């Protein structure tokens, strides 16, 4: 009994079920409005008939600044998942997959090479979930996150840059195997 639809600005008043979860960031209003204005088709929500919004995805299409084109780490035109969240009681029902597929389709329409996302290397549940949806680790961004919730490191936590190719990447030139071992610094990807 759920439905996927575009997010509207007034929906921002109905995000309690997802945003009260501590792992979902509550950004300032301008951040959401920027996405709603720039990439309206890549901001979708899943609505339960009785409970309201129980998940959403917020994404964009972009490429790295042209000044980085010479770099071996240059990131070309692609779709990016900025936020993907599902309320705790509605997890493992396939909502994340449906939301992601919708963003992937939107990125495909916009001629993107791939869709990518950043996830904490230690967040095994999330990494496995994305792998299950066809994403693979492209590279490890060392100390990308300034904090490390596991307490394993003093200098922060690594991020996995995970990718799934779009139909444009017929030769799969923007994904690689064993990306977990391909280390880059945060400056390379900014």
């Amino acid at each position, binding site marked *: *009994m*759920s*439905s*996927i*639809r*575009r997010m*509207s*600005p*007034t929906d*921002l*008043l*109905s*995000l*309690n*079920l997802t*945003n*009260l*979860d*501590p*792992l979902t960031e*509550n*950004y*300032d*209003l*301008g951040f959401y*409005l*920027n996405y*709603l*204005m*720039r990439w*309206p*088709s890549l901001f979708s929500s899943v609505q*339960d*008939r*009785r*409970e*309201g919004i129980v998940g959403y995805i917020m994404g964009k299409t972009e490429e790295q600044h042209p000044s980085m084109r010479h770099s071996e780490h240059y990131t070309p035109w692609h779709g990016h998942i900025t936020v993907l969240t599902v309320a*705790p*009681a*509605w*997890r493992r*029902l396939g909502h994340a997959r*449906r939301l992601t*597929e*919708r963003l992937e*389709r*939107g990125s495909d*329409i916009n001629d993107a090479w791939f869709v990518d996302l950043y996830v904490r290397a*230690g*967040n095994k*549940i999330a990494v496995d979930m994305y792998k299950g949806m066809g994403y693979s680790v492209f590279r490890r961004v060392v100390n990308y996150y300034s904090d490390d*919730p*596991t307490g394993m490191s003093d200098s922060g936590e690594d991020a996995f840059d995970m990718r799934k190719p779009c139909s444009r990447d017929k030769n799969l030139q923007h994904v690689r195997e064993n990306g977990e071992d391909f280390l880059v610094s945060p400056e390379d990807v900014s």
Partner: protein
Amino acid sequence: MSTNDAVFYRRNKQIQDAIDGQNLKQALQLIDKRMKKGEDTKFLKAWKAHILYRHVDETHRQRGIAETLDLCKAEPPATDLDTLDILYQTLKRMGDQAETMRTLWERASKAKPQDLDLQMRWFTYAFEGDDWKSAQKAAMTLQNNFPKTRKYYLWAIFLSHLVATDQASSETDRKLFGTLAYRMVSKAADSVPSDPKELLSPPRAIQGPEELLLLVKIFESQGRHDEIVKILDSENLGLSSRVIQNDWSFIGVKLSSLEKAEMWTQGLSYAKELLAIPSNEAEKKALQERDDWAVWKLLVISTRNINTQEATTETLKFIDNFLDVVPKSRNAQLARLDLIHSGVVAGTLKTEDLVSTCQEYFDSNKNKLYCFSDLQLYLAALDKEAVSKFVEYASKCQEENVKNDPFKGVTTINALKLEYCFILSSDETNVSKSQVEDFISRCLQVYREADRPERSSAPSTIESQPSDDLCLLAAMSLIRFSGTWISGNQDQIPDTILIRAAAILERLVFDSPHNYQALLLLVRIYLRLGAGSLALKAFSKLSVKQMQFETVAHNLFTRLATIHPHSAPPIEGAEYKDFDPQSAFVQALNFYRTAEVTTVRHRSNGLDLGSYVNIEGTIELQRRLKYSVCRRMWALDVRRMQRLAGGDPMGRYDEVARDSSPLTDQRVFDAFMNCEPTNQPTFEERMRLGPLPREQWVTSTRVTDQLFSTLKGMALQKPVSVEPNPPSFEDIVGSEASTEMTSSEIESVKINLSLLKVVSFLNGSKSVASEEVDSCLTQVEEWLSSKTKDLDLNGQKISLLVSKTAVSLQRHESSAPTWRSFHDLYLIVESLKALSLITSIASKKASKAAKLPKDRIQRLAESTRHVYESIRANARALKSAISEPGVLGSLIDLVVGGSGSGEDGTQLRAELDRTFDTAALEMFCGELMESWEEGLDGLLRVSL
């Protein structure tokens, strides 16, 4: 910058500096000097008129108005941006000059049709100032004068639509601009080439999905839903066109348009088409997207509206076939339930059909947490016996061994929720103590048995577990049903039970630190118990910020000013807002202020990006936040807190506090667990601290705020603006007041209004006669006398007022305050503070104010002081009662053993013993006692 520009800038700066320094006379002199030297420009004239208008005295002001209006009408019209800017700003300050402002820019644009900056400035000012009509005119001018820029044409369409849908527009304007928007956007749709190979489309043709969505919005506002369907079926703009590329959003638009146009036959056929059984892998994948409730909803509604036996049978067969291929489809199963449910309600199908379909649904979905709430609606249609049988059926399906259950005991959780809803809550008057105890025991037993992730593995990522619901259910049923045998009233929640429920929830939060349902409920429980510092602490774990100040903060903030207005002891590593209510309220109010700027900025950006529908949504969001009831409440209450507890001045919220425009309300309570039957109040509603404040609460609190603002002005010997006619009590507090105000709040506003009248009289208001002041003072005297009696300790441990509101501990030998105790006492103290200020001002020898009888003022001052001291005595008595020996032990007994009104059964007692850790329980009780003491210390710190 050229030399001339530099000189011009320097000279202007001198004038601006004088204005900024409030030296308007000097600013005028500087302008006159330049004019005399021959610089007789429209710019200087406009500036001079502006400065004249800003004078306080009426003569200069009127001259400013006249000169500004003359300049606006002058021929040839002003066209330089600086002059237009100043004239526009003056007109804006004058107010009610919308037409003149529009004409000013319109004439300038006519005079300089190729001046893009000028027309853009006009458009920007009008759009940012929410003057849709003027912005529409500016957009029309832009699209006429700059036809090669296609966006101006779309702006003109969009602005016409905004005028047409604005409630403030006249009926004629709505019709006129609605038709214009419809015609212009239809033309844009017609211009789209039907041949997809035609790469270039005319500039004014619709080119992308956002523009097409604008068309949909315009057509919807005109009620032309059938035309939307037609367009979405067309070649040039249809679903498979180059513009849409089968974007799911537009399939959703078509579905809702078919419904709104009541095209049932087409709707049914379209839904079936989307849900057709796949014949290959690609179709199978596509079906995953199409198996969406929006599609099924249309299928069900269409079938229902076609309303023939044949159609219903066919649709049910269609669903069965679908389920044969996709047996797990929740949507398909619910569509079947929906149709059978409607058949039973209409009398065309038998109850047994619904029972068996519900059972089938339960069998397929019992391992999903949504199962209970999905079934709740349909089960409500069954009679008591059928529901009981169903609940029994669900109970039998429970797992034998929850520990090894791969679904983490969800079947049992669903069965227990069904039992809570349909056996306990639906029959609340007959529910027995042993029934409830047995239910709670089973919840706690399964909770203990359920597997949980290791706490130490990754504390920051511990997810809430399904079994968390069991502790919540246990706490909720204690709260919900204990009233029946403790106070003889199931609607009255015994405070002692709240202590036990809090202990259970604290245990849950230890295991599942991020469970927001538990944290929210804990916040309410602690607030109700008068443990403000613990409520703040629990709330801080939710890390509420940004938009949540509008949507979540009300769970803590509502009436906090009269429960815990002072700062709690600092929490290590926490921000001030986590323990200091004033800081929290200030942050919330900062959010609203920033939101005003942010929304305007982004909706302007959206115009360039062409996201028209989201701009319209942002305008609505901005309106809702601007007029939010929460914003108004937080502004009024942060000022109240400051009055009671001290702290930084809150003058910056004067404007919001005084605002009397209509309110919007976005408060939702969806994050609370609720298992109540659908026709009964939700659990959250039962847990509120008094009725939910709305318009009357805001109006009455504004009276109190106005009273203190006036008194503050008088104390500082500032000129005080007196309301011409203070409102009557009936104007503020209507007959329905008790649905949003507590009785103490109603009493408080009554007294404060009387005091406001006295203050108005002291300020020389002609509308308050001395006879009325006399009656007001009599009312105040009577109130003081009744409070004296209510608060009199008379050798007892607690007064009458406190005994009515406090929670009895230690088998009625000692008491602790609850929210009602603090709420009542703070409201009295607030009125006493006002009275104290009045008596002090009125008794000053040099006072220019109207006089009140000296001896009466003296008596009032004495009574005020006496009531104040009684409150302090009560607070001290409560404090010493809490710190009496044995209280901690009594509290622990109360949590484990019950309320003292009949012992708990052995089963529950044993379960509670196993659930609680003794050391943790001791700490919980100790913290509760500390919190009560801390709350009372806060009350004792309030001075008159």
